[in-house]
């Protein structure tokens, strides 16, 4: 298994796209801190990168990579290796390279410019978000054999979590504003990894506003240590469940 991971890692690291991704991330992060006069605004820019760019690149790159390496996967399958080992190695290889790219691109500027709780939280959440969307990409690419369809799925998934989900939540909020839905809304956020990530960072970034009326409810839930672990646990579930589903499908699939 380790050897397959190594092969995949070197293959991806040779791939220019990940290199470009790293450079773009680092350019964005450094300029965010360099151009703004206070580090809080730089953090906001990086927050947008984490919530927008990182998921998009992770899910698209992974989907395309999986389709492109279908021949390599078939070759591996002809060897005496267990199917779940192959799929897991692919996952770990891709995750390791994307997390590394994020860490070098955005993590290092964060550590240098904002070496505090918010900065650390952002690095951790950025890494987790990368892995979540890689897992979702595994699910998308296993659902169909058609490359175009698979990439379409991936883009739709990203669009849903980055944009549509929040629109739906906003719609629900205003439709149900007569009801005491604050607590239910906390549960709804668990349905989107991007929202989980965003709220966790918000609680550190906009702490004063979050102490307001409903903010307090979120703070009571997510701000405590138990809430912190709960939201990290949920994010990990967002990795485990899509990947497990794709793994099951991969083991049974007739390639």
């Amino acid at each position, binding site marked *: 298994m380790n050897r397959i991971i190594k092969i995949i890692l070197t293959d991806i690291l040779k791939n220019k796209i990940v290199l470009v991704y790293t450079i773009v991330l680092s350019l964005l992060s450094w300029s965010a801190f360099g151009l703004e006069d206070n580090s809080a605004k730089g953090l906001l820019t990086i*927050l947008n990168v984490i919530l927008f760019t990182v998921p998009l690149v992770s899910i698209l790159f992974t989907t395309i990579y999986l389709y492109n390496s279908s021949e390599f996967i078939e070759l591996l399958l002809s060897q005496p290796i267990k199917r779940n080992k192959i799929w897991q190695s692919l996952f770990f290889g891709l995750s390791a390279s994307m997390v590394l790219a994020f860490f070098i691109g955005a993590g290092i500027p964060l550590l240098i410019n904002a070496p505090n709780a918010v900065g650390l939280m952002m690095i951790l959440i950025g890494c987790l978000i990368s892995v979540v969307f890689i897992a979702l990409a595994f699910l998308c690419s296993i659902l169909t054999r058609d490359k175009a369809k698979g990439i379409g799925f991936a883009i739709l998934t990203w669009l849903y979590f980055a944009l549509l989900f929040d629109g739906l939540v906003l719609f629900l*909020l205003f439709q149900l504003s007569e009801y005491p*839905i604050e607590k239910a809304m906390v549960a709804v956020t668990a349905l989107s990894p991007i*929202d989980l990530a965003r709220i966790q960072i918000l609680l550190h970034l906009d702490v*004063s*506003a979050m*102490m307001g009326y409903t*903010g307090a409810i979120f703070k009571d839930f997510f701000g405590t240590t138990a809430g912190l672990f709960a939201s990290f646990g949920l994010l990990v579930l967002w990795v485990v469940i899509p990947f497990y589903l794709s793994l099951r499908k991969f083991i049974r699939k007739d390639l």
Partner: protein
Amino acid sequence: MRLLFIFFLCTFSLQAQKLEVGANKPYKTIKQALKASNNGDTVLVHKGIYKEGNIRIDKKIVFLGKDFPVLDGQKKVEVLSIHADSVIVKGFRVINSGFAALEDPCGIKVYNKSFVVIEGNQLDDNFFGIYIQNGRNCIVKNNTIIAYGKEEQQIGNGIHAWKSNDLQIIGNSIKGHRDGIYFEFVYDSVIWRNIATNNIRYGLHFMFSSNDSYITNIFRNNGAGVAVMFSKDVTMINNYFDENWGASSYGLLLKEISDSYIYTNYFKNNTSGIYMEGTNRIKIEKNVFEGNGWAMKIQASCMDNEIVNNNFQGNTFDMGTNGSLVLNTFNNNYWDKYEGYDINRDGLGDVPYHPLSLFAVLVEKNPSAMLLFRSFMITLLDKSEKVLPSITPDNFVDNAPLMKPLKL
């Protein structure tokens, strides 16, 4: 005749005696000494614990404590009651006053008198700390007042003044009471260099008190920093409003107040920096708003207020309001969220700035929407609203925002 009078006065003051109270002093109890004293005498109390119930001063004396003698009310009575003009109380440690809903027992209370000075005392665990009832020209200075209140109903105010005027409240530190300092029907008074922290309700509370000033005080981590209600002509200069966090928590709460001046104050990390309701003709100038949830919440019931030359930096929302009516003016403020340009380089932005964001309006209507803050969707909506204001009132605007922050 006049010379004779002055001569008489001098001899009179020379006759003033010093009565010492202590374990191995002529007087064993404070009450004996007070009984023996005359106007103009000094009663000097040495170190020790005095549990003498209610101590009543009804002569013009100087009441001095040496090495902080303890006056203990044993949670039963009011500790020190002052029923004479020109009394000076200095250097005592007053603890454990009684608790009563009807009588308001205090650590130290002044009844209808003038020119009383209460200076350099420590008050610990009293129901009310220092209470000035119908006093004139009294000075409360450099006292340390601590209580351990848990609920509003179970504890009184640190310094409470009722129907008084010309008071000076200077350099006190107040902690853990209901209101740090409370003014009701108090006129022409000054509050200067006090520190009010961790009080349950307000750091400083004005009711029906006009022509007062408070200058260079610190209000930190109270239920709300300062509440000024039903008053006019209040001057607020150089105060710090810090970390007043909570749902209905404000740095400064203004309610039904008019003709006042708010100058060079510092609002930092409050849920709302200033909350204004029914506020008229107030000038807010050269203040710093930093890291607040809402820098200012101006309700539609406010009129003719001027907000000029302030710095707004790092606030989650610069403004909040509850309606579409705007009768206030904003001019020459610095907003860190401003994205305009300055072609003629006069330091003023050429594009007006709308400090009220769409999302602030949404959150005001539906507080749960806070959940979506900083999501990409909301940012998109906000940007489009900035270009074409449709929901936010378009006269909520700073026509000449500053390009650079003021040095404050």
